């Protein structure tokens, strides 16, 4: 084989290597892009058809929505908090949204989070437990307007 062909093949190999790199980077582009193109979250109809397990779960029926969390009893009694779209962490830790000054509350005690149009409360493995009405939480449960949540000595409820 002539030297010219050999040199061409050797340069061709370098080009091939870089084609591989560039194709990998093209394939990566989707992960790297931030914003609308990255399409995190909602899968498209086509993706759902191809992978049925991507289909969004049915949303629970809408109820009367709550807009404030009012603390009824306990050291913080009388205060209330506007509920936005983000979840709320209840506990004694400084990072908590509502910092409970309550000796019976754990650092990260419970979490109140929106799901669909309802709010759910979930115990985060607290020492003394979280009560919704009279029953202790064993799993995340929806909270309706007017139902009382008790953590240690603090009692709170959702209000419209």
């Amino acid at each position, binding site marked *: 084989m002539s030297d010219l062909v050999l040199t061409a093949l050797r340069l061709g190999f370098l080009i091939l290597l870089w084609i591989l790199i560039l194709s990998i980077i093209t394939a990566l582009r989707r992960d790297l892009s931030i914003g609308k193109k990255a399409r995190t979250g909602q899968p498209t109809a086509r993706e759902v058809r191809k992978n049925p397990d991507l289909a969004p779960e049915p*949303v629970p029926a809408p109820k009367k929505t709550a807009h404030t969390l009012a603390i009824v009893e306990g050291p913080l009694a009388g205060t209330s908090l506007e509920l936005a779209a983000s979840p709320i962490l209840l506990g004694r830790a400084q990072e908590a949204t509502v910092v409970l000054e309550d000796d019976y509350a754990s650092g990260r005690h419970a979490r109140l*989070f929106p*799901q669909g149009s309802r709010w759910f409360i979930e115990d985060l493995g607290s020492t003394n437990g979280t009560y919704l009405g009279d029953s202790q939480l064993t799993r995340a449960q929806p909270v309706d307007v007017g139902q009382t949540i008790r953590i240690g000595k603090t009692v709170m409820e959702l209000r419209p």
Partner: protein
Amino acid sequence: MSEIQTAPVPRRNTELVLLVLALIVAVGANYLVSLSNPDGLDEGFITQGAVLAGMALVMHIVLRIWTKYADPIILPCVVALNGIGIAMIHRLDLVNDDNAATRQLLWTGVAMGAAIITLWAVRDHRILRRAPYIFLAISALLLILPLVPGLGRVINGARIWIFIGPLSFQPGELAKICLALFFAGYLSTHRDLILLAGRKIGPLQLPRAKDLGPMVIAWLVSIGVLVMQSDLGSSILFFGLFMVMIYVATGRISWIVIGLVMVAVAGVFASQVMSHVALRLNSWLNAFDPDVYDQRYGGSRQIVQGLFGLSSGGLFGTGIGNGRPDLVPLANSDMIITALGEELGLIGLVAIILLFVILISRGIRAGLGSRDSFGKLLAAGLSFTIGLQCFVVMGGVTLMIPLTGLTTPFMSAGGSSLLSNWIIVALLLLVSHNARRPAVTGPLNERDMAAAGPDISARAKEREEDQTRRRGKAPASRTTPTNGKGDPA
């Protein structure tokens, strides 16, 4: 620890296209090697191409079946690196009249088989979290094995090999995976404690003396490896691994400061007391000194020859089969980077380094997307070991840092390194599958509880923690699939 999610779409077809490209690169490299062979295309060319392509495709199918959401980039990168490595070893075989490439090919098959078995046996990386101390014990055992008389043997001054009959193996390579599993398991359960306790001095929050324990253990293990096995590379690797994992777990710069102080202490100690470390330092600082160059043991000839090779390669390289990488001692293992740099030039070497960078970044990305802290730590730690090995080797052969005997992942001739790195790849693929598959969000329902089995409380707790973290820290940046309508913000 932060978390970023992508749309949960399996991208196996992308992987297949990239894999075919990677195989073309690997076979092309081997074809160029065959061109320089006076015998023309030998049977080695065909078997190498066939084994590599066959195993890669089997692995691809396995990924399609068991982990269909796994990262599509990792496998093609690794196959390309492994293929180029085999081609280079084959090329050096032709000159040295050796059959290292056949052995390497055999080990590649074994290693990919081990990776497939790992994928099949583990399935969900979280089961590895259950018994961190077992992994600690295994790694201690693996590290002690070479010291057992009759089993271990000293090669090139380091006691890191075991010999069972005709087979030789470096157990330290597997120990690094076990150590990463232990650190990930330990730190993911003790993270909160380490994070909260301790007093603050200036901008640094110092950990409690009690929490320093594991770090001291890691430090002692590294020193032990250095002293007992005379293996500088592994000892750097183990300590670096722990330092990075605890930094990823806590995000505290104080750990890095403490770690660097410990490294400095150990470094001064080693360079003063241990002769081979001092030799390494000397051949790094005075590499071009004729006395050091000609030294019989621990001289700088290897490094300097490697540098000459790199410089004769220049920008475009001499072309595969056209250079003299065989002049460098151990060109197919420790110095394979300079061999590649000589024959592929800067352009080719940068491409190879980029493949490593992409691979490592995909591993860290898998950690970033992972929903549990164990997966995060494991992916970060394992990809970091690959990165640190590359840095130590490439820094060593280019005289940036003292040369230490670590292997270039996936490329150097050597079965143990290949085996452990392929297992690392399997673990990274598993973590990335878990990170990229559709999220199960919303409250825990009875079905999940029943499916979760006896250790439900731990899992439920972890899910809650993870959800809190996800929702609490970045609630506006993404919508969950269960949200019904799109994000109003």
